[in-house]
């Protein structure tokens, strides 16, 4: 019976590979490679995957440092299969890498062999007991910041394997429902972070980087078509050396696309046109009432330096009670996601020291995110355009991953954040 199904399975494989979903993992320093992969995906009719369960392939962009081993391996284990993986550190490697993925996914026999060889259940799943089903703890309770109800909190790390997320950033959040209660920042460095970022800076691709960040914000906000436009412009703004063109790339009627495929180098005229288009896109985003409405107040309950004396007073009067502070600050904070987004789309904006800016933003991030829901948090992180590849060694040391695993007790008050489960309660 299996024999008779073979032709069908081959046909399915051929069709399936035409829509391959690729999970993109960006390592600091791998920005240009990631942009090139994204462009190649569009050219092939492939798409970016949203999670390992959705993915057929994973592409690591950049050169991961040692700290990446575990997350990459676990991501690989979580892919259902058929699965393939590749690693690209430069745009020029992209076409070959994707050809390799396609070939691997098309090889039905090899994929079946891979599938047959896998453990059905992860090796570290145990029988556990009532308090530790499958060998994993139950969530612990904590009094909520806003209403004082004692609810469970979840420790949910955001990044590094997360689409539309700054390279190598790990935000170790504690979530109560979908709201961030605490957060801690770590950065997983790339092996070649410094060198690549220096190269990027010399090539002056700041416009492209900011357009890329804007595209990420727009994608996260669900404005896919506008995001596609921003990606388009990003590619046109790339310096010639960072463009890779797959042999498949077809000419297209759009003027920008032919600019893109000319690969003659970003001449002055070309750069001028890109800036003009970016300004137009900015106008479009600025005028969009729906977008403004959807993003407005996608800002942060924070006691950032801008929030003034009143909220400081409130904080002093009630340490640990963030209810009033949050609402006050939300009313006052106007540098919301939309403003940041418009800034990213401003072709005349300058970003003189992305490294210092990023470090400052990362240091302020945990506090900014307290009381913010996880969707807003992701929008904000994208809008901050964090350049982890521009961080210096001492910055990286400050955000180095910690092994202490005591995430609960890390920021502020985590003292009573332990399980309150005692035997059989009543319904």
């Amino acid at each position, binding site marked *: 019976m299996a024999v008779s199904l073979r032709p069908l399975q081959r046909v399915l494989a051929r069709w399936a590979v035409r829509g391959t979903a690729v999970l993109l993992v960006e390592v600091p320093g791998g920005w240009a490679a990631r942009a090139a992969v994204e462009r190649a995906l569009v050219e092939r009719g492939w798409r970016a995957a949203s999670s390992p369960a959705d993915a057929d392939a994973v592409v690591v962009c950049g050169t991961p440092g040692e700290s990446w081993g575990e997350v990459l391996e676990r991501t690989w284990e979580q892919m259902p299969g058929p699965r393939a993986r590749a690693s690209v550190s430069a745009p020029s490697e992209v076409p070959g890498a994707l050809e390799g993925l396609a070939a691997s996914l098309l090889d039905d026999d090899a994929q079946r062999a891979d599938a047959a060889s896998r453990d059905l259940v992860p090796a570290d799943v145990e029988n556990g007991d009532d308090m530790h089903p499958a060998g*994993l703890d139950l969530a612990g309770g904590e009094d909520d910041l806003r209403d004082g109800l004692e609810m469970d909190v979840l420790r949910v*790390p955001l990044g590094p394997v997360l689409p539309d997320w700054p390279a190598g950033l790990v935000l170790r959040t504690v979530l109560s429902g979908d709201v961030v209660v605490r957060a801690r920042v770590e950065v997983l460095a790339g092996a070649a972070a410094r060198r690549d970022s220096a190269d990027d800076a010399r090539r002056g691709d700041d416009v492209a980087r900011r357009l890329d960040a804007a595209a990420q914000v727009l994608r996260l906000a669900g404005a896919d078509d506008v995001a596609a436009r921003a990606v388009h412009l990003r590619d046109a703004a790339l310096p010639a050396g960072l463009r890779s063109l797959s042999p498949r790339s077809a000419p297209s009627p759009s003027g920008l696309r032919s600019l893109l495929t000319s690969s003659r180098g970003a001449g002055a005229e070309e750069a001028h046109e890109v800036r003009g288009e970016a300004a137009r896109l900015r106008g479009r985003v600025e005028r969009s009432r729906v977008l403004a409405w959807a993003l407005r107040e996608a800002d942060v309950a924070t006691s950032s330096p801008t929030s003034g004396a009143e909220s400081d007073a409130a904080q002093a009067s009630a340490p640990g009670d963030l209810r009033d502070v949050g609402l006050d600050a939300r009313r006052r904070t106007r540098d919301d996601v939309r403003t940041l987004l418009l800034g990213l789309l401003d072709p005349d904006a300058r970003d003189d020291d992305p490294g210092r800016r990023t470090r400052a933003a990362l240091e302020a991030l945990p506090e900014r995110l307290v009381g913010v829901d996880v969707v807003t948090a992701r929008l904000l992180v994208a809008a901050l355009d964090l350049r982890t590849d521009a961080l210096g060694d001492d910055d990286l040391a400050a955000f180095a991953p910690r092994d202490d695993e005591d995430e609960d007790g890390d920021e502020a008050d985590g003292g009573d954040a332990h399980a309150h489960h005692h035997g059989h309660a009543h319904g």
Partner: protein
Amino acid sequence: MTGAEATSGWAGLLAVLVLGGVGVTGAFAVHRLTAVAPRGLTAWPWLSGWHPSEHALSRYHARWYPVTVVFLAFDVEMLFMYPWVLVVADVGLSAVVEMFVFLGVLLLGVLWAHREGAFSWQ
């Protein structure tokens, strides 16, 4: 009145349920033949590449619970609404006045809840 009419359509809905059940089962059966492996994998839930610290199923804080109170109180009204729909034309203006006084009172409650901030998440 024929037999099928007397069942007022419930046989058709039962058939839909049965067909749906057969269809879903069929899809799973077909998938066993077409997938690269018939048996599914078990994996740890995805957390950006990290091992979970605890099970996700927990006492999940739904911060919008004040709204549910307003919602549940308001939706009881639908019990009266649907039968009312049938008689508006026959009963006439008094039915309309009655229902909208009823709804108006509820809307006052909604307005008040709005002023109290029940519809803005904290």
